[in-house]
Every structure is written in C-alpha cells, then in structure tokens.
C-alpha cells in the first residue's frame, strides 16, 4: 500500500533527476568544445564512424524510400485522377514536384535519422556503457582525462558536422530512387517531365535547407541521448542492454516529436 502511494513520487523524482543529469551532461559537453584541439583525433575518428561508415546504409535506405514514394505517387495518380488525356502531360509534371518535396522535407531526414538511431545511437551507448561498467571511464579520469571532453564532446561535434552531410546524400539518392521508380512504374511519365516538375517547385532549395536543419536537430538528439545513457549505465552487461534499448526508443520518440515541432516552426 505504501509503495502504491510512493510510486508516483519516486517516478517524478527519477524523471527530474534524469533530466537534470541529461542537461548537465549536455551543458558540460558543449562547454568542452573549447578543448577541441586536444581531442581533434577523436573528433576525426568519430567523423569517419558517424559519417563515412554510415554512407552505404544511408544510400541504400534513401534510395528505396525514394522508390517507394515514387511508386506510391504514380499509383495514386494512375487510379483516381480521371484527368483528361489532353491535360495529362501538363499535370504529370507535378509528380516530380510532389515526390521531390516528400523526399527532401520528410523522407530523407526521417529515414536517415531512424537508421542512424539504430546504427550510431545504439553503438555509442553500448561503447560508452561498456567503458563505464568495466571502469575504463574511471581509468581515464584517474589519468587526468576529462571523460566528457574525450568521449562525449567528439561524438556530438562529429554528429553535428556529419548529419547534414548524410541528409544531403539521402536527398540525392531519395530523388534518384523516386525518379527511377516513378518513370519505370508509370509509362506516361518521362525523366524530363520529372525534372521539369522538380524545377517547377520554387521552394526546392528551401525544402532542402529545412531537411538539413531537421537533420542537425535529429543528429544532436540521437547522439546526446546515446551518450547520456551510455555515460550513466549501471548494472553490468544487463545494464548495457537496457541502456541501448532505451536509447533507441527515446531517440525514435524524440525524432518524431522534433519532426512535428520543426515542421510547425519552419514550414
């Protein structure tokens, strides 16, 4: 009975404590940016891991999500437009614009962020969490390294640098997928029409910038949640597993929330 009444207070306390620890870790990580010179090699290592080594999976997922977008757009166009044949060519050009906007504004940033949550978020938590439970973080501190400057700041910096770049790569391959799938699945649509449609969209550059801004926020959210959960891991191997799962779930929720908030602000 006592536990029943105590539970909400304990839960509230643990949420407030967790948020306090999270924001304090982020504050000290951002403060540690002034130590970037000392940790340049770590930042470069993380740029390779987060950016270059993630390229194949980002290309693959963006290409196929663009293809799905292309196929669905032409499918909808095919079944329910009822546009007279003499106007079809003119109207088909809108397909390029529709697919382009979907890819740049939503699909590329969202799919890239979700894939990176699994690839980078989980890896960061598992790495830092294992270092915590095997006392490697204590060992770093004992030889005068600041673990926040050495482990966390480089990962956050690298993600802020590389996420926009990954989003742009995702944009290119998403559009390519959309082009290939839409032109091959709907015969009246040609590549020229598709590109004409893209050019018709006067907000193309703006859409691309919005997608990149979303990517920056998603990257920061994924890396900071992953570092926080890794840094405060406790409870042995089981603890690392729990922390990794939490990272993936919390990052996915944050991405969806941020996506809505940023869309409301930027569009």
């Amino acid at each position, binding site marked *: 009975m006592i536990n029943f009444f105590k539970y909400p207070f304990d839960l509230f306390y643990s949420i407030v404590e967790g948020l306090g620890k999270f924001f304090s870790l982020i504050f000290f990580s951002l403060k540690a940016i002034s130590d970037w010179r000392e940790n340049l090699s770590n930042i470069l290592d993380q740029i390779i891991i987060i950016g270059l080594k993630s390229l194949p999976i980002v290309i693959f997922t963006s290409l196929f999500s663009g293809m799905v977008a292309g196929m669905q757009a032409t499918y909808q166009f095919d079944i329910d437009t009822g546009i007279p044949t003499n106007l079809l060519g003119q109207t088909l050009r809108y397909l390029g614009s529709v697919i382009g906007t979907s890819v740049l504004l939503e699909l590329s940033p969202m799919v890239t962020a979700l894939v990176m949550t699994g690839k980078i978020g989980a890896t960061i938590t598992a790495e830092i969490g294992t270092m915590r439970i095997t006392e490697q973080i204590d060992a770093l501190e004992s030889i005068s390294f*600041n673990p926040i400057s050495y482990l966390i700041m480089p990962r956050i910096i690298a993600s802020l640098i590389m996420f926009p770049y990954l989003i742009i790569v995702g944009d290119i391959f998403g559009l390519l997928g959309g082009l290939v799938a839409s032109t091959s699945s709907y015969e009246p649509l040609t590549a020229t029409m598709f590109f004409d449609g893209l050019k018709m969209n006067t907000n193309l550059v703006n859409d691309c910038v919005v997608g990149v801004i979303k990517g920056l926020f998603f990257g920061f959210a994924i890396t900071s949640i992953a570092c926080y959960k890794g840094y405060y891991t406790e409870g042995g191997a089981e603890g690392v597993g729990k922390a990794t799962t939490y990272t993936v779930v919390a990052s996915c929720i944050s991405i969806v929330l941020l996506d809505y908030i940023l869309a409301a602000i930027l569009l």
Partner: protein
Amino acid sequence: MIKIKNLYKSFGDKEILRNLNFSIENEECVSIIGKSGIGKSILLKHLIGLMEPDSGEIHVNNKLINNLTFKELQKIRNKISMVFQFGALFDFMNVIENVSLPLKKLTDFSNKEIEEYAKKSLIDVGLEGAELMMPSELSGGMKKRVGIARAISAKPEYILYDEPTTGLDPIMTHSINNLIKKIHNEEKLTSIIVTHEMKTVLNVSDRVLFLDEGIIKYDGPPSKMYNCKDKTVLEFLEVSGSL
C-alpha cells in the same frame, strides 16, 4: 602522505564508510582488507578523487582534495595512479597505446621518449613483445600486468591497487605479488592495496587496515593481526586459512 579525517559515505540508507580516520606515510605499503561489498574499493576511489565523500576530509601531500575543481584535481592525480580490478584497459587501444596514454597526458616527453618509457614499463612487468596485442587477446594475468605498467609509466608517488590478484591462479597470484613488491621497493612508491588475499597481505604489505561495518577494526602490522581480539578479524583469518 595521505591523511583521512572523519570520512563518511553512504548510498541512500546504507552507510558504507562511517567517520574513518587514518593516515598513510610515504613509502609505506598498506593493505586494506575486509569482506566483499564492505566499501574497500569505494575508499580507494575517494583517495584519487573518483568519488566525493558525504563529509570528512582527504589530504594528499597536505592538500585537501575533496571539493577541488577538475583542473585542481588533475594536479593531484598526476601523483597518484590506480590499478583497476580487471585492468580497465582501453579496449580500442593496443597494449603500448594503453601504457603510453598517461605519459602523453601527464608529461612533456617527445613521442620517441614516450615509446621508450612505455616499453620500459612493459619490460618491468614482464610483458616485452606484447606491445601490439589488443586487450581482448590478453589473459587475465596479462591484463593486470598491463594495468600495472600503465600505472607506473608516468612515475607516480602513490599507487593504488584494487584487488590486483582477484580471479588469478595461485602461480599468477604469486607472480603479481612479487611484481607489486618489486615495484614498491625499486620505485620507492607509497602503495595501497585493496585485497582479499592473505598471501598478498603477508608477503607484500608493511601494515594492514581491516575494514568492517564502515570502520577500521584492525590497524597494524600483518604479523600481529593474529593477536587481534575482534571476532570479525579472527573469522576472516580463519576462513582465509591464515589462522
């Protein structure tokens, strides 16, 4: 010299250290023993500033180290090294990189000097030839040796060992004990060893602190432990086969 005054630490309702008082002179070799989970490793982590006490004072070389800023604490940590229970080797670095890391951070040596010092430390612990091995390729005993090499590489004044022989076979235990003794004598260090092994206590240390229920129940030379009247101390000696 390390001096502890009224050191108190608790986790929630559980009192771990209850107003501890003791001091350790320079070049002394002190073992801290006691049952598992009694707070020996926690005490060790307080001495290097990895944990902060709830109350009390920790003085290293007559400087109060609790409540120092990270930068102030760095100066103290330059004088203290710690050997962790399972080595705590950085698993993304090979052996020579692990041993070189304190030298890179704490000294102004050139890369060539760092390599020479790191290799010498590895020779001192009997691990020449293992420079390029990764921690995952090392046995438990080798990991502990690399941990010791890393700890001595930057020439500290104090060295803290957290259960240096746990999980090792008797031959390896004997060999690590000899290594600790050799390093203590040759480098003129102040050594503090947290252990369960009575062989380590008897062979290596000049003095023993027996920690139980957050207080020190025995403080004296290992040979006189057998005359102690405290039941827990005698039980510990009996169960460990030393009585």
